[in-house]
């Protein structure tokens, strides 16, 4: 059995080593693949804050992923067509600068998470799952019917957005950027888990009544967690759109919400590196099984079924020999 801390370092080193190897071997596609895994990992780390620590089974996190994507798409679209973005009587210019796009993506998704959270957290359990799923579908249909920004066809952005001092069109530089963000997000997550807020949230998941009796408001703790979680997933959405240079309503698709949960479960719920391991494995499976058979989702489904029924701790649980994620 491997200690979890060692396993985390191995994963971390592997994520850095594979793209570096790909430069030497001159395989730019591998770098893109790892970048994809890193971005999905950021989204899943975001979801893991709500799901793993807060116990909020959100089946609508694609909303924030999509909002981040559209924040990037709309800003870059106005910049590339030299048109202004008219919002509430204000006339704003588009932008191709990543930091501004990220900020907008985070703020917009956080706001959406606040509204959706306020409504959905009135309920719990199965209701919460169904309601988040329904809100996801609402955004999906809204994006389809919103013809100003491409409707069902989506928006193509011709040149990847820029970051000061970097050439983001070089795969390894864009990878570096995403990897740095993943590190920041993981660091924040680790700090949050052990901060008073994280501990209170953990308690609110396990025994809400007791948390309430000591004078904390479980509903508010969960709402804050949901907002932080949505904001991080929104950031990942902006990066994902930049990776593909394309946004479409499929980013809002409920299947994506399901897959984000799947990433966490494959890796291990509530563990810091669970989403990272899950995302790497998911992208690897998609790449290899997808090359072998057109119907690779069948195998993904079977693997998932086996993990849910027999290996509750996910891959990290299997490797470290500890089933429970929470110490």
């Amino acid at each position, binding site marked *: 059995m491997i200690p979890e801390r060692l396993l985390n370092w191995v994963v971390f080193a592997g994520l850095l080593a594979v793209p570096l190897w790909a430069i030497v071997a001159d395989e730019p596609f591998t770098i893109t693949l790892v970048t994809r895994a890193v971005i999905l990992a950021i989204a899943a780390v975001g979801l893991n804050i709500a799901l793993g620590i807060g116990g909020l089974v959100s089946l609508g996190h694609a909303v924030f992923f999509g909002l981040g994507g559209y924040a990037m798409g709309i800003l870059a679209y106005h910049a590339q067509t030299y048109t202004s973005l008219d919002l509430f009587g204000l006339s704003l210019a588009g932008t191709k600068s990543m930091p501004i796009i990220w900020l907008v993506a985070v703020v917009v998704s956080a706001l959406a998470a606040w509204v959706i959270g306020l409504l959905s957290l009135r309920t719990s359990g*199965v209701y919460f799952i169904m309601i988040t799923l329904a809100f996801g579908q609402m955004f999906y249909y809204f994006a389809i019917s919103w013809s100003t920004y491409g409707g069902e066809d989506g928006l193509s952005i011709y040149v990847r957005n820029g970051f000061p001092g970097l050439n983001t069109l070089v795969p390894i530089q864009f990878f570096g950027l995403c990897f740095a963000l993943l590190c920041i997000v993981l660091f924040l997550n680790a700090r949050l888990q052990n901060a008073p807020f994280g501990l209170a949230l953990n308690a609110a998941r396990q025994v809400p009544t007791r948390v309430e009796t000591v004078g904390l408001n479980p509903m508010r703790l969960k709402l804050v967690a949901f907002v932080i979680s949505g904001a991080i997933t929104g950031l990942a959405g902006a990066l994902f759109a930049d990776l593909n240079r394309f946004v479409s309503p499929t980013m809002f698709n*409920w299947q994506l919400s399901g897959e984000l949960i799947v990433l966490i479960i494959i890796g291990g*719920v509530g563990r810091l590196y669970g989403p990272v391991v899950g995302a790497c494995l998911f992208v690897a499976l998609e790449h290899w099984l997808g090359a072998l058979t057109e119907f690779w989702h069948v195998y993904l489904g079977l693997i998932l*079924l086996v993990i849910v029924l027999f290996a509750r701790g996910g891959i990290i649980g299997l490797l470290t020999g500890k089933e429970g994620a929470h110490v």
Partner: protein
Amino acid sequence: MSTLLIIEQVLNGLQFGVMLFLMAAGLTLIFGVMGLINLAHGSLYMIGAFAAAAVAGATGSFVLALAAALAVAAIAGALIEITVIRRLYGKAHLDQVLATFALILIFSEGTRWLFGSFPLFLNIPDYLSGPVALPGGIQYPLYRLTLIAVGLLVGLGLWALIERTRIGIQIRAGENDREMIAALGVDIRLLYTLVFAIGAALAGLAGALVGAIQSVQVGMGEPVLILAFVVIVIGGIGSIKGAFIGALLVGLTDTLGGIFLPELFKLFMEPGAATQTGSALASMAIYILMSLVLIWRPTGLFGARA
């Protein structure tokens, strides 16, 4: 806006509503009795539609096709209950969501593997096609009228089954106290399989009936599944009556919203912008309805417990 158009749209909304009810009734029954959230219910809808399309293609009989949809969906439901679902009772909702999500992946890709990616077509039989004249001079498609009738009849049958038969008493008892009913000598495992198969058969029937007016394709079940979730959130989870009222509300809101919201906005906006805003808002109308119900009653209109 003529009265005729309004009546026609109300009928369309009713038709959509009763079909949603067939889906939602199974979901809410399964949740009420077994406490299980079943994402794969949409797959059973799809399986029903594919079974009907295959049998109709082979035999040409619509009645046989419907029978096949019912039978195949019920058998598929019983099979997954025995192999997978049975292990999920009493587990965390997260596990149920994931396992049934896995079932969706398996069923969708499996169906694509069997039938290919192209949609199949299920034709309305001759004796049900064409319009029928209603009082007031309305011409309305006979098939859609039949769907409304079938939906209402199935609803009535379900009510009779649950309120008036021995099995219904056992189902209701199972909802309240599963240990007690098991102690009284009822085979609770068999009862659960039966309830799941009934829910599956209803979903399969809905799939086959709707498949004749839309195309039969992989992934057809999930949008309906999510609408059925909206229905039972509005109606209250576990309540068949709630599912019925909720389904009609959602069906009518969706259909009427799509027609009347753009018209409404045309009263005070220019036509182009009005159509755009109206149809965008119409696509969100049922979710807004759901939010309003939630603010008013977090457990739904007829929900007893959270």
